[in-house]
């Protein structure tokens, strides 16, 4: 039993199953929800098996069809990939369950949702497991393409507009990235991350290539001030799609950035470049939070909160230089997991609320005691993780980032984390207080179970992950480009 568990390439199935299901869902739309649920459950299982294998036997690679790089495709299952797969598994399972209730058979959207989502899922998982620059490009394009189609799903003018912005920004970003890949290939004759990591010289060309690729990926990650496309695209998509875009898709280019900076170009990137990203991250935290505080619609509030949370991920670049590398690394990856779960849950609750109330204007959502109030409390529970209150996984992540900032002596980032927490509490409180405001309108009907339980379950998981963060934290460092003690002490 263990021999199979420890040698089988489980992670490959997280790509193949959704891909096959996508085709099936396209051909037999009637059975698409069933295919989606089966896929979701099996992906979750395969992710668990991958985690088990990495836990016991360490990170591993798999050559598809036995072909060697550069012609063949090599998949790598390491700690960082695993955290991404965990996020994808949890978010994907929840959203799939929710979508079976949200889209009805009569709905034209369902016809396209399932094939596109399953394709997106396969592409995401493939991206997380990819080990070379070009593969990352192709998978990233697959992710972007299916995301764009999903964002345009409901066909409203706002959604089409948002999708078009998303597409143009994505295209600009990916071509910029690809030009960087061309430069790298020209200089070193390979695109394999590991090989490049051993051969890259810290010269001007490398720096230019890194800058090009980084700029493209920043646009795709929607880091402030390149975030302009995100709020319209995320806020006008159907809620299950918004949950996927915010919870999962923005993390795809992020992982590529981490791999580039820490695996391929650890010595090429200068401290100044790292701090530039860190400062942009701080800008994102503050600007995104302030915008979220000003929004009048719930979904836009949540979308701007994503802009703010993306900023935290970029604190990794300055904080992971030096002694606190492992602390910051684990902190940011746990934050990816925490944010994925909480943000997806928040968007799903938004969807339920919009269904119930018929709109998502904050001014009209007061509803103490009723069904709306209960949904708003679930939203608040998800926000506990988002804000980083204990005992949630968001708290553990924030705690690690604070520790990293202190060890690295970066007080400026520490102050931003603190301020960001307060601002996040501020915009969450705007929503939470509605749960206690008496409603003037007649009571609303209770939402169907399938629109209530998945987001609640995901919020609970996100909170409980804080108490079970030990193993994920250790696994994050398996095969990671940084190493060291997670919680460092600096006794002189």
């Amino acid at each position, binding site marked *: 039993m263990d021999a199979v568990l420890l040698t089988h390439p489980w992670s490959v199935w997280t790509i193949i199953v959704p891909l096959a299901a996508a085709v099936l869902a396209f051909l037999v739309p009637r059975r698409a929800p069933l295919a989606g649920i089966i896929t979701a459950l099996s992906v979750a299982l395969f992710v668990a098996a991958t985690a088990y294998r990495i836990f016991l036997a360490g990170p591993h690679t798999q050559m598809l069809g036995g072909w060697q790089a550069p012609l063949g495709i090599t998949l790598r299952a390491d700690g960082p990939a695993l955290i991404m797969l965990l996020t994808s598994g949890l978010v994907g399972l929840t959203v799939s369950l929710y979508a079976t209730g949200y889209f009805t058979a009569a709905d034209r959207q369902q016809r396209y949702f399932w094939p596109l989502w399953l394709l997106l899922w396969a592409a995401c998982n493939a991206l997380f497991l990819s080990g070379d620059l070009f593969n990352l490009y192709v998978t990233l394009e697959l992710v972007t393409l299916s995301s764009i189609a999903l964002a345009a799903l409901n066909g409203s003018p706002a959604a089409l507009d948002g999708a078009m912005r998303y597409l143009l920004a994505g295209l600009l970003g990916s071509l910029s990235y690809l030009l960087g890949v061309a430069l790298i290939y020209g200089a070193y004759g390979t695109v394999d991350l590991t090989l490049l990591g051993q051969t890259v010289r810290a010269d001007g060309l490398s720096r230019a290539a890194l800058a090009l690729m980084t700029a493209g990926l920043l646009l795709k990650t929607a880091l402030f001030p390149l975030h302009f496309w995100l709020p319209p695209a995320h806020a006008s998509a159907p809620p299950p799609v918004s949950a996927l875009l915010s919870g999962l898709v923005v993390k795809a280019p992020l992982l590529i950035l981490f791999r580039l900076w820490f695996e391929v170009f650890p010595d090429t990137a200068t401290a100044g470049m790292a701090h530039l990203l860190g400062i942009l991250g701080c800008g994102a935290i503050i600007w995104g939070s302030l915008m979220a505080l000003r929004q009048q619609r719930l979904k836009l509030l949540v979308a701007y909160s994503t802009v703010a949370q993306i900023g935290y991920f970029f604190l990794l670049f300055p904080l992971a230089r030096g002694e606190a590398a492992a602390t910051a690394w*684990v902190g940011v990856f746990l934050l990816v997991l925490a944010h994925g779960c909480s943000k997806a849950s928040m968007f799903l609750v938004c969807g339920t609320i919009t269904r119930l109330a018929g709109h998502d204007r904050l001014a009209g959502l007061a509803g*103490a*005691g009723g069904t709306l*109030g209960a949904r708003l*409390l679930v939203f608040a529970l998800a926000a*506990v993780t988002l804000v980083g*209150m*204990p*005992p949630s996984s968001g*708290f*553990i992540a924030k*705690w*690690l980032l*604070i*520790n990293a900032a*202190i*060890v690295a002596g970066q007080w400026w980032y*520490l102050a931003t984390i*603190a301020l960001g*927490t*307060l601002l996040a*509490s501020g915009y969450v*409180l705007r929503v*939470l*207080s509605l749960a*206690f*405001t*008496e409603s003037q309108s007649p009571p609303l009907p209770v939402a169907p179970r399938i629109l209530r339980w998945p987001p609640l379950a995901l919020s609970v998981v996100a909170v409980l992950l*804080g*108490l079970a*963060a*030990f193993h994920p*934290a*250790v696994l994050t460092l398996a095969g990671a480009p940084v190493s060291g*003690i*997670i*919680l*460092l*002490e*600096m*006794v*002189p």
Partner: protein
Amino acid sequence: MSWREALPVLIVLSSLIPGLIIFTLPEERQRLRTALNLGGALVKLSLVAVLFPFVYLGQSFVFRLPLLPGMDLVLHADALSLLFIVLSAFLWLVTTLYAIGYLEGSPHRSRFFGFFSLCVSSTTGIALAGDLISFVIFYEMLTISTYPLVVHRGTPEALRAGRIYLAYTLSGGILLLVGTAWLRVIAGDLAFVATGILSALDPSLHPSLMVIFLLLILGLGVKAALVPLHGWLPLAMVAPAPVSALLHAVAVVKAGAFGIMRVVYDVYGIEFAASLGLLQPLALIAAMTVIYGSVRTLFQDDLKRRLAYSTVSQVSYIALGIDVAGPLATIGGLVHLVHQGMMKITLFFCAGNLAETLGIHKISEMNGVGRRLPWTMAAFTIGALGMIGLPPLAGFISKWYLVLGGLEAEQNWVIVVLMLSTLLNAAYFLPIIYRIWFGAPPQSWPRDRVRADGRETSLLLLLPPLATGLLVIMLGLLAAAPFSPLQWVQIITIREYIP
């Protein structure tokens, strides 16, 4: 897991699990909800009773849940935790009874009692936290679980109070978190150990330790309502009476005071903290808070606001006792944790009864109310006299030891502060007592709920203040009895001062 590990966890879960179940109950399942509430409270009290003899004998109960490599969630029971946990477990039971009576027939009770239980679970966690990080975790959980109680009524006023409450406590929480992280980086494990853990650190770190102390005290001072961090407390009065009672007597304010105890005694160590010169400024702030709170109290006509400012003043007795740095002052400060809780909860119960039964919210409306609510007002009088420090009531014991502590530490100004405060206490409580018993009752009360059975108010509202009022007398009269809070505090003090 052995039962020694399980016991601290079970004590926390005894309120957490009923709370989580209550959230899912529909509004009309009143009997099941009551059963869960009271069942949880009784189970918690019995578990604490099991713990008691073992902690007395100096045995340890430790539970560890690894959160990260090098960081555990630690629950342990020592003498100091027991002091706080007995208080909170007992007052939870009493307050639950009161709240059931108080909220009878009002909406959103499942939500209320759910958060109420979460709040008590967090308080229990604070009492049992075995290191500073675990303490912070429960401390922040307390913040979020009390917000829904503060805004329970959902009025714009309540929501505003809730906003301000969160603004204060979350800002404080961040400072506390940063201070804790910083301390962990330079000192490693932050387990609570009697006589402290930091005195062995390199002297070059002492400036950092002083800054960290400031951060920690700022974070804790918000909840302990040290001036000028007290602004949220009077506003939080909009909460229903049982919430105010719990907030002032056990949960929030006491969590801050208890945190200051932990930081001073079990992290820094009282002698080390004194040698860094950290206690004198804190004592001055506490003294200032005592006086400022009392003066502000004088000018409040709203009864609950008067009680709130009185809390600002009284809780700083605890901080004062800690910071005067001497065994006798420590005894005074620690025992006041219990005594103030008992007295203040009595007063809030009575204020709740006035509002609930007669619609009275202002002191100017209280003329002659002693004739209409004799039992309630008797309890109120005992609580108020206790606050003034009249022998042989509980408040007298605390003040007596604080005065002795001031003399012992040769800090005579403390005695002046205490005398001044006592005068002010008398100035704001005696007129109320006079009104109650000797004022001429009005033609009619703002809203009189006369009961068919002839009782002044329902039993559930009457028995809790009578019970706590009786305890205020007993705590003073029987202060020398074995296992009284005073005796227990003496045990703690010995452990804290003798390495």
